[in-house]
């Protein structure tokens, strides 16, 4: 439960503020302005995260009685964490998530950049319609999209060859899930990149044209380097999105035998907490994931910053 809001706070933190140039003299205004955000962060992110941490250090112990008529909540030390770390299924679920990320993140970034460059090209026609068409899948809730894709995949209802292609095979399933996730976010990312492209002063392009550069050359040599920060940012968001993979596999799970209840880490947390009623174990897994997510975000953020700095030199 805690992991989702916590991770989005990380996004906010990582994306927030370039280094401040001027020192702001003592004034209450800034405090007032950030107060609502801080209060919300404390209430809905920090407090649940702390509660999850507290829960993760406890367990319920049944004492006496066939059906546990006496139960106590006792201090468990790190036993919930060792249970998580020694469970091969936990690492397997992380592995599956990484496979999806390896497929999905580059696909999202490349497609979003490609779409944005195409929309921005001088020769592009029907841009308003195309922009809307590309953006539309983002407006469809993930669960609905997954169910729709489910119908497209299943042999009984598939218009895209589900009778001959097993979309739920042991290898295919990764592409099947990644595909749903990618279509869901590509539209949003396209808009981010497209906005970045629009912000580039037009005289740069004119200068390039005068120098004899064609559309393709402008796209590759001028536009791409200029939108590198935006590309880096959507890469970061895509990585975080991959770490939070939950909706798509959960919604696809009842359709076939390919997806287990612990298929990706967040599904495991959900299963622990709300299916097998081990809220303490679930909290431990959630907290572990939170730490991993923060670490991954910082790593990707630092890497992306380096990349941008190098390319802007």
């Amino acid at each position, binding site marked *: 439960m805690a992991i989702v809001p916590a991770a989005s706070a990380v996004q906010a933190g990582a994306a927030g503020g370039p280094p401040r140039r001027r020192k702001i003299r003592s004034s209450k205004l800034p405090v007032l302005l950030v107060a609502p955000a801080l209060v919300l962060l404390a209430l809905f992110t920090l407090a649940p995260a702390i509660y999850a941490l507290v829960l993760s250090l406890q367990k319920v112990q049944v004492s006496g009685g066939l*059906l546990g008529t006496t139960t106590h909540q006792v201090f468990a030390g790190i036993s919930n964490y060792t249970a998580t770390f020694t469970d091969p299924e936990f690492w397997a679920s992380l592995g599956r998530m990484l496979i999806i990320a390896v497929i999905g993140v580059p696909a999202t970034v490349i497609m979003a950049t490609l779409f944005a460059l195409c929309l921005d090209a001088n020769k592009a026609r029907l841009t308003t319609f195309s922009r809307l068409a590309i953006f539309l899948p983002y407006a469809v809730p993930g669960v609905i999209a997954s169910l729709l894709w489910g119908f497209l995949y299943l*042999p*009984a209802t598939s218009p895209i060859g589900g009778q001959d292609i097993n979309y739920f095979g042991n290898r295919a399933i990764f592409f099947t899930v990644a595909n749903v996730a990618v279509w869901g976010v590509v539209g949003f990312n396209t808009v981010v990149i497209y906005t970045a492209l629009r912000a580039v002063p037009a005289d740069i392009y004119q200068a390039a044209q005068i120098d004899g550069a064609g559309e393709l050359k402008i796209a590759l040599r001028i536009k791409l380097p200029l939108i590198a920060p935006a590309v880096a940012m959507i890469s970061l968001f895509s990585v975080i999105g991959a770490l939070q993979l939950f909706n798509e596999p*959960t919604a696809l799970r009842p*359709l076939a035998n390919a997806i287990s*209840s612990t298929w990706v880490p967040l599904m495991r947390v*959900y299963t622990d907490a709300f*299916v097998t009623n081990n*809220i303490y174990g679930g909290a431990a897994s959630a907290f572990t994931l939170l730490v991993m997510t923060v670490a991954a975000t910082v790593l990707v953020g630092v890497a992306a910053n380096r990349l941008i700095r190098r390319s802007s030199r």
Partner: protein
Amino acid sequence: MTRFGKRRAAAAVGMAAMAVTALAACSSGSSPSSGSANQVVHLTFTNWDNGMQAVVNAWNKENPKIQVKLIKPAGTGYTLYNKLITDNSAGTNPDVSEIEYQALPEMISNHVVISLNKYVPNLAKTYSQAALGQVEFQGKIYGVPQNICPMVFYYRKDIFQRLGLKPPTTWAQYAADAVKIHKADPKEYLGNFDAGDPEWFAGLAEQAGANWWTTSGDKWTVGIDDSATQKVASYWEGLVNKGVISPEPSFSTQWDTDMNNGTLVGWISAQWAPDQLPALAASTAGKWEAAPLPAWTAGDSTVGTWGGESEVVTSDSKHPAQAAKFVKWMNSSEQGLNLLIKNVNVFPAATFAQSLPALNTPPSFMSDQPDFYGLMRSIAKHVRNFQIWGPNASVTFDSYSDAFAAALQNHTSFGQALTTVQNATVSGMQKSGFTVSG
């Protein structure tokens, strides 16, 4: 009583359920009011059965002092039970809820429900020992049984007739028929192996003589991979590997379509199927017939159950006496049961009610089988259940779904999957501190 599209519902509401849990404080509990004689007591009641509102309305009309509000839960089966367990910590549970038998021990061990001995002292007169055994543990009664749901074999009589087949009476014959049907039309299957519904498989194991959980004093023994269950598992593994049984989970989109278009010509289900089939396979109305489940030895009528519910009073209820009164009326009075039979297609657990005249009319989906309930009555006499369901059956069931789905997906051994389920169950119980051997 019944389960409807459990997996599907679970998928659609999974995330919603999480949000609801987080906002537990907003959900309705019992309104606190002093229990003085002149005040109206308001009770809340969660139940997912279609037609239940009519039963509640009838009660409200006759009991102006005890007004019941029916709440349809966001999800059925374990989606509801897990919500009840979570909300129990917040103290926001409804006064009364339906709990299927297989989940009741877990609800007791999580302190969700209270003992009703004080309020319903004479249940033994109304119920058979077998029915009472589903709700009574160590002398305490935790729920009033509503119905029993023996497993039943449903088949497409039009297709059986075309192939000159009769409903199989033994599992050996079922296997032979499965081959015949698939050979006659490679698109058709006699049935499916359902990795999505653990209670389905448990019911088949009950018939074979398994006892997944047994107790002696305060000690538990877990026997999920006992020889009887292994026999059932390897039987189905054989059929699945031959390719004559569909591996699709029941209540999935694929299965719905297959049930509708005649790909599936049989369904190993339970008494409640006619309540579900109109929604699942509407276009096949009038083509299905019910028959006793095939037997392991010819002539043996032993059968397991799939589903079946009791109504319980939660520990959050501020009016347990009134809540128990409502529950007792609904599930064990002639008036309540007549309403349940008429509106919810219930086959009652109360012995006297199994011969109520209301049962002379078959459910509308089975109108071609006028003696449907007569058949149920004779099948229900031979119901065999496990001694008790585990105090962490949710772990068992979750493990079953994962292990058997993986076995189907990877074509690995069902027996191995069973061992996985056994180990998960035992280690889960040990972790919680139950005394267990297995």
